[in-house]
């Protein structure tokens, strides 16, 4: 980013720091920096403290590998959740998304990435060994693979299904198809094929309600 001589070096440093964040362009970085400059000192201190605290007090849960400030995390400690299913996701944000939907009452496992053969990212770069360690427990009956429906997600799911299949644990993968609000007209062949293959029968009672 080009530094203007009219901008004080300390402000330029803050602008550069904001600019390094994902999704923040040079204009947004400038706006954020000047907002912090104009805000009361207490607001700037709260921001700085929050940034340092998140770095100091968070770690990975020893069980599910999600980011947590207490180990094991709240999800792993929750006695109301079922131990029989583990939902495997690529990133911590995926756990948050599935929890918002409220559709899974089992446990999670976060891989922290996906296999990307052409970038040289393999299973040893992910939390796969930790997952296999959990599957030795006889209480685990099903592993749900909730990878993204792209090439990396498919490579990861394909690899895990081979490894976990050899352990004799049931493996399922979340369904693929059209997202809510999409147009059939614009859907690609593979999405339509998946949607047709995994079509479901409409409950008659539900249809007449």
């Amino acid at each position, binding site marked *: 980013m080009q530094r203007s001589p009219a901008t004080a070096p300390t402000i330029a440093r803050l602008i550069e720091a904001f600019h390094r964040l*994902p*999704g923040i362009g040079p204009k947004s970085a400038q706006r954020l920096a000047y907002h912090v400059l104009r805000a009361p000192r207490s607001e700037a201190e709260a921001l700085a403290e929050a940034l340092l605290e998140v770095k100091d007090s968070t770690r990975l849960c020893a069980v599910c590998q999600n980011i947590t400030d207490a180990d094991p995390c709240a999800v792993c400690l929750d006695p109301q959740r079922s131990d029989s299913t583990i939902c495997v996701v690529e990133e911590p944000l995926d756990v948050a998304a599935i929890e918002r939907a409220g559709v899974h009452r089992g446990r999670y496992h976060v891989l922290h990435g996906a*296999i990307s*053969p*052409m*970038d*040289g990212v*393999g*299973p*040893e770069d992910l939390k796969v060994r930790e997952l*296999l*360690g959990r*599957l*030795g*427990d*006889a209480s685990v009956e099903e592993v749900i693979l909730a990878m993204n429906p*792209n*090439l990396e997600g*498919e*490579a990861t*799911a*394909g*690899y895990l*299904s*081979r*490894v*976990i*299949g*050899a*352990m*004799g644990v049931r493996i399922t993968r979340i369904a693929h198809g059209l*997202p809510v*609000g*999409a*147009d059939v007209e*614009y*859907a*690609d*062949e*593979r*999405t339509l*094929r998946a949607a047709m293959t995994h079509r479901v029968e409409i409950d008659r009672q539900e249809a007449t309600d």
Partner: protein
Amino acid sequence: MPRIRPIRTEAIVLRQRPLGDADRICVLFSPTRGRVEAVAKGVRKPLSKMSGHVEPLSRGQFGLAQGRSLFVVTDAQTLDSWPSLHDDVQRMTEALAMAELVERSTDADISSGPLYQLLRHSLDALADTPSPPAIRWWFTLRFFDQQGYRPELEACVRCRADVGPGGNGYSAVDGGVVCPSCHGAGHGQRLSSPVFRLLRYMRRSSAESTAQVRVDAQASAELEQHLRLSLEQALDGRLRSSGFAEELARAESIGRNASRAAAEREREEQERAAV
């Protein structure tokens, strides 16, 4: 600056990488333009109309407009999505090895019609074959031929003597078969008769015929090693995707070992509890 007209081209998507929050950079391989890098805007959003049409290992028709540094994909329509290359991880691994080979050996703005046809035909064959590795072997030999690395299989690469099937070696450094006497003098690695015959058969046969040949595990491992060393010579390095191919081959034994280790742990815990 003269304004560059938008272009339309058929292309195979070799790979993608994320750009910003919602975009991806797609590496396309076009028969007329070689390797083209183009930004597909908004394809990481759930309702993107283009996302399924720019997935790697698919062939499509693309509209491209010149952006500031890269092309921008203005429209995309899938022509071949090769579903089995995505659903079957073994086929996907072979296809990625071929795509990486093409990506690493082609440049932008260089017409690559024959290589494009080779890749397209090989992906077609891979989608249906009972023997995915055989298609990659066949592709690799044809790739060597097209790129000027054709391995010598008829005469010894050191003394030019004619070679038969027995007692030969293979030298990736010298670029082909080494006769028994030169091999005895320490040149090349062992080349068994079945692998020698298979290499010659692949050279004169179609991908589909090659896939019908039964190759035992020992010959397969030997051929893989010769091809890997030849590729390392040609590319001056390893294919990145080969690491995953090796991991995938070990996947089931990793699972069985993990299962055995868990059973052992449980037995030890039970014994401790009993004591």
